[in-house]
């Protein structure tokens, strides 16, 4: 039982990280109907910026404080994501208004490859580390119930709390603020939104910036756990089944979807894996997503396609 719980927690934590990446997909899809293939590349780019700035700033300005370095690096990385959002809107999206979804998807695919390369040109292509002072030692809980307790990583716990906070902030932003309402309006019908004076360009810059913010948070957490390297951008591929499962238009869906995938992956690997010779973790998520596409194409929490006849 203790082992089961350990696996379960491990899965939940891994799932939380998938959710963070999936969030970026959902945000952009909701507001602009673009399936942003570049989300993974944005995570890598943000993490690279964060890691390198934290390394460079103390050298450039001659100070020691780790906290200050991280803080400044975070601000600088966020600023880069905003500039990036603005550039993507200016140079790419605004030229493609009212094009087919597939055209936009191809454009984001292009952006993904560009970002992968450009990030490494700017920041180098080695493996870097992000040290934001996440606790690295494991904690043992429920020691009264099981012998030896259940081991969980404190780092994962902190990550989960941050992810949860991020989701709450985003949900409030979408539901309660004027800009959030405008974002949802644009998501529903961007021509109508334009007709009542919502400027699409501004909205797109905002939403790509918010997605950039989500990418930065995801990048920091993944980066501090596994190191910052090229493979980080492939994390996005794990987020695809998450958004299919949770629904492309639902922020809570991205979270729950991530958790289900994370847990499902780990449990199936441990309990079904031995029967099939292992390696389930790699493809489990995709098979689950496929199954979901057959029975509930809008995902668990996706907006039902409302059609009046």
């Amino acid at each position, binding site marked *: 039982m203790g082992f089961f719980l350990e696996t379960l927690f491990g899965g939940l934590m891994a799932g939380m990280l998938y959710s963070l990446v999936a969030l970026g997909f959902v945000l952009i899809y909701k507001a602009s109907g673009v399936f942003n293939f570049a989300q993974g590349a944005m995570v890598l780019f943000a993490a690279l910026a964060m890691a390198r700035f934290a390394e460079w700033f103390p050298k450039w300005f001659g100070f020691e404080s780790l906290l200050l370095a991280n803080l400044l690096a975070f601000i600088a990385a966020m600023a880069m994501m905003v500039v990036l959002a603005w550039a993507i809107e200016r140079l790419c999206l605004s030229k493609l208004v009212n094009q087919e979804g597939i055209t936009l998807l191809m454009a984001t695919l292009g952006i993904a490859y560009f970002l992968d390369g450009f990030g490494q040109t700017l920041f180098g292509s080695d493996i870097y580390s992000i040290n934001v002072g996440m606790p690295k030692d494991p904690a043992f809980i429920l020691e009264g119930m099981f012998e030896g307790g259940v081991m969980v990583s404190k780092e994962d716990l902190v990550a989960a709390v941050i992810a949860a906070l991020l989701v709450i902030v985003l949900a409030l932003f979408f539901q309660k603020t004027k800009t959030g309402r*405008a974002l949802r309006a644009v998501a529903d019908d961007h021509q*109508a939104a334009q007709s009542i*004076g919502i400027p699409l360009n501004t909205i797109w810059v905002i939403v790509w910036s918010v997605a950039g913010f989500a990418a930065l948070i995801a990048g920091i957490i993944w980066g501090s756990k596994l190191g910052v390297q090229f493979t980080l951008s492939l994390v996005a591929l794990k987020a695809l089944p998450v958004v299919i499962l949770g629904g492309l238009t639902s922020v809570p869906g991205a979270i729950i979807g991530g958790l289900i995938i994370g847990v499902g992956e780990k449990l199936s690997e441990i309990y079904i894996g031995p029967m099939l010779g292992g390696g389930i973790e790699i493809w489990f998520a995709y098979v689950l997503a496929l199954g979901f596409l057959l029975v509930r194409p809008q995902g668990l929490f996706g907006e039902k396609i409302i059609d009046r006849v």
Partner: protein
Amino acid sequence: MNTSTTNAPPAPESNILLNVNGIEVIYNHVVLVLKGVSLQVPEGRIVAILGGNGAGKTTTLRAISNLLKGERGEVTKGMIEYRGERVEALSPSDLVRRGVVQVMEGRHCFAHLTIEENLLAGAYTRSDKGEIAANLDKVYTYFPRLKTRRTSQAAYTSGGEQQMCAIGRALMSNPNMVLLDEPSMGLAPQIVEEVFEIVKDLNAKEKVSFLLAEQNTMVALRYADFGYIVENGRIVMEGAAQELASNEDVKEFYLGLSGEGRKSFREVKHYRRRKRWLS
């Protein structure tokens, strides 16, 4: 072009709100849709653009509100003035800030937002909280139906309610001039009357000017002050609403009435229409 109108152009009034002068619109760089349309909307009036499918009514409205770009169209000739200021180069949101807002054909409510959220989204260009609240109240007094449905998602409301929501949403930006595209489309005759009554009311009490595009000539001429008839991208006739309604050609081609009662010789009609107007 033979504008064989029997009526003189509108008496030159000093307070022309909107002046459209000889605009040409081309879609996709090749398709010429408007071939020199000129019209004027005096302050505080309801002006109707009438005509059949594909005549260029919607394109005219979109040219004014600058929503053509999304449809790959552009104004290539002529000029559009609002309160004496050239507005062709302004973005739709700048126009809304200046007081010109369009209600699109087919309503286009935000399906997943509630009615009230739809209305509040319409106030995007307004920042004064008190003003927004006052406008919301005003919209609810003109459209009491919306108040009863305020928490429903727009997609689940009826066609009439959606049309009201679309008009109410436009009113939230506190406009001087509303471009209203096919408000009667797909609505029951009774609801059409209800919507037009409210338009008339808004015009009389709130001094909002309307430029409306309609296929429903009969109803539109009953509520409008002035009308333009568009065919094939040109204005073929213009005049005060009552004059148009009593014009023989309009009666025959648009109201389905003629001296010998109802007829349906479509070929003949088409030929005669060509001969008289389009030659």
